[in-house]
């Protein structure tokens, strides 16, 4: 019953959020097919009105159709997995998503993995060295890192790694003369091209996971059961590993899923700066050329991603923490 209830809730939430997405994009000025119509008019040498008609046909948009019908069509399409048509790239948004999503997930998942484990290890270490120099140094460094917006870090890495030292490529996910595939040479260049975005996304994550872990550990060290374990004469390493860290990490594991969901959208500027062809890069392109179809499709994808991630986080949390399940 409660699972059914939850699913219904997700369904309604998705529906409402997509409604907001639709109306936000609809309020952008201009005809969504205008760009496409201009290029058709030029290439086929016809009048703009006629080209506009053809363009409307291609993207399935009828300006005389009432807003509410267009809205219903949009919702129906999303729920059957059709994200619309991109007028700028002249292809379906699904095709762009198929091309772009793997690169974004590649960078996000590795960056989150590195960020989470490095951050959690350093955070726990810092909390363990309470009232020593280390516990001042590590949080200070983390705070400074937190003051650096991800895209500022991205610009910095691009300048130092790409321009000054000429170590990083200035764009793309792999060289254009290479065929994508799972052979060692390609995997190596893929990592090389992803290095910039990877650094720019994982370094801020190290800081935020680290600070969260340190806070949790410091709270748990004060708890009675830790004190009792000390009185029982357990060695410090056992207490740190089995009593403190295990309890401190639980809430973080659940937010891990939410973090990945939000990064689908939060990654936009980093991908734009590195010209890395993921979801965020295409989102930036769609904004700058006013590609309404692509914009709506990608934005819907991001929102659905966040909702799913939140749902997964809740399930994870109830598995990890039996107290939540009991309620």
């Amino acid at each position, binding site marked *: 019953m409660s699972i059914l209830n939850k699913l219904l809730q997700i369904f309604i939430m998705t529906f409402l959020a997509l409604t907001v997405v639709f109306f936000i994009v609809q309020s952008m000025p201009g005809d969504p097919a205008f760009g496409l119509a201009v290029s058709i008019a030029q290439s086929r040498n016809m009048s703009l009105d006629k080209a506009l008609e053809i363009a409307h046909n291609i993207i399935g948009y009828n300006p005389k159709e009432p807003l509410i019908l267009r809205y219903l069509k949009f919702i129906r399409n999303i729920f059957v997995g059709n994200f619309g048509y991109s007028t700028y790239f002249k292809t379906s948004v699904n095709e762009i998503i198929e091309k772009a999503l793997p690169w974004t997930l590649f960078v996000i998942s590795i960056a989150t993995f590195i960020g989470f484990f490095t951050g959690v290890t350093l955070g726990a270490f810092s909390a363990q060295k309470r009232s020593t120099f280390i516990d001042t140094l590590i949080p200070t460094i983390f*705070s400074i890192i937190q003051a650096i*917006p991800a895209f500022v870090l991205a610009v*910095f890495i691009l300048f130092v790694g790409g*321009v000054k030292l000429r170590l990083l490529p200035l764009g793309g996910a792999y060289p254009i003369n290479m065929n994508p595939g799972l052979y060692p040479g390609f995997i190596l260049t893929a990592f090389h091209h992803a290095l910039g975005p990877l650094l720019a996304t994982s370094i801020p994550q190290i800081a935020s996971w680290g600070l969260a872990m340190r806070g949790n550990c410091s709270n748990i060290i004060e708890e009675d059961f830790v004190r009792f374990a000390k009185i029982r004469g357990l060695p410090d390493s056992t207490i740190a590993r089995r009593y403190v860290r295990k309890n401190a990490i639980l809430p973080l594991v659940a937010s891990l899923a939410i973090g990945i969901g939000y990064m689908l959208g939060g990654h936009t500027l980093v991908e734009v700066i590195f010209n890395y062809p993921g979801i965020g890069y295409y989102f930036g392109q769609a904004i700058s050329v006013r590609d309404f179809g692509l914009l709506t499709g*990608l934005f819907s994808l991001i929102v659905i991603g966040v909702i799913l991630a939140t749902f997964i986080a809740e399930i994870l949390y109830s598995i990890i923490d039996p107290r939540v399940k009991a309620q």
Partner: protein
Amino acid sequence: MKDFIRPIFKNIKALIGFIFLSIFILMASIGPLFIPLNLTSNFAERYQPPSLKHPYGTDYFGIDIFQQIVHGARSVIGLSVLASLFAVIIGSIVGIIRGYLGGVISKLLDTIITIFLVIPSFPALLIMAAIFSDKSLNIIAVALIIAMWLWAPLAKQISAQVLSIKSKEFIETSRMLNLGTPYILFKDIMPLLIPYIFINFITQLKGAMEFSVGLMFLGLAKFDPTHWGVMLNYALYQAGALYTPRGFHYPVIIMLHIILLIYGGILFAQGIEEVYNPKLRRYE
């Protein structure tokens, strides 16, 4: 009010943060009076390194970077403070109403908060900026657009706090004395939330600053050519800086100012949080 402010300056983090912020606020408020802005290009002096004549050097057009930084501070700080203020006001009002009232209104507000939470702010903000980019917006309009995507987490936290305060005995007493909802909301509940709201105002500044610099960086909301985000955009894209290491100091100086300003805010917020959250003070 004195009791509210004095402990802040006894905390070293809050003090350092306050000094950082003060320098930037001075720079923004009276800096432009003393340092004139000369935006005429002078290609003979392109990409000069920092010197006595140009403390921060010059950019691609030979324009003094220090002057631009000083004049840009006004719009960077003004915009972030306004956006953060609007976000905190909206978030507090929605949160308090959602927490205190029950029934249909609370359910409705809950749904609205959740929708704003699941729609990622930055992409939404980009679209909003694109909607209005044809019209020239003033600073208040841009701040409101940014605030629209910042308030939801605060509203959620405030409503949780109000829910827990609501069931305390002294609220019951006020209710039994028939003091009325406005009295309970503003005289009983509000004062307890003020330190919390203030900390949030400072932490929101970080988000507001990131968002506004990001927007300007993408060139989606142009109202000031010396805004640091616009400058960073020029440093990266306009001047061909990606192909020459000569102008390296230009973006680095802009980044350094963005980071120092946000770091000042973070230190100040951390300090205040330690002062008003005894649970944190215990570890110092």
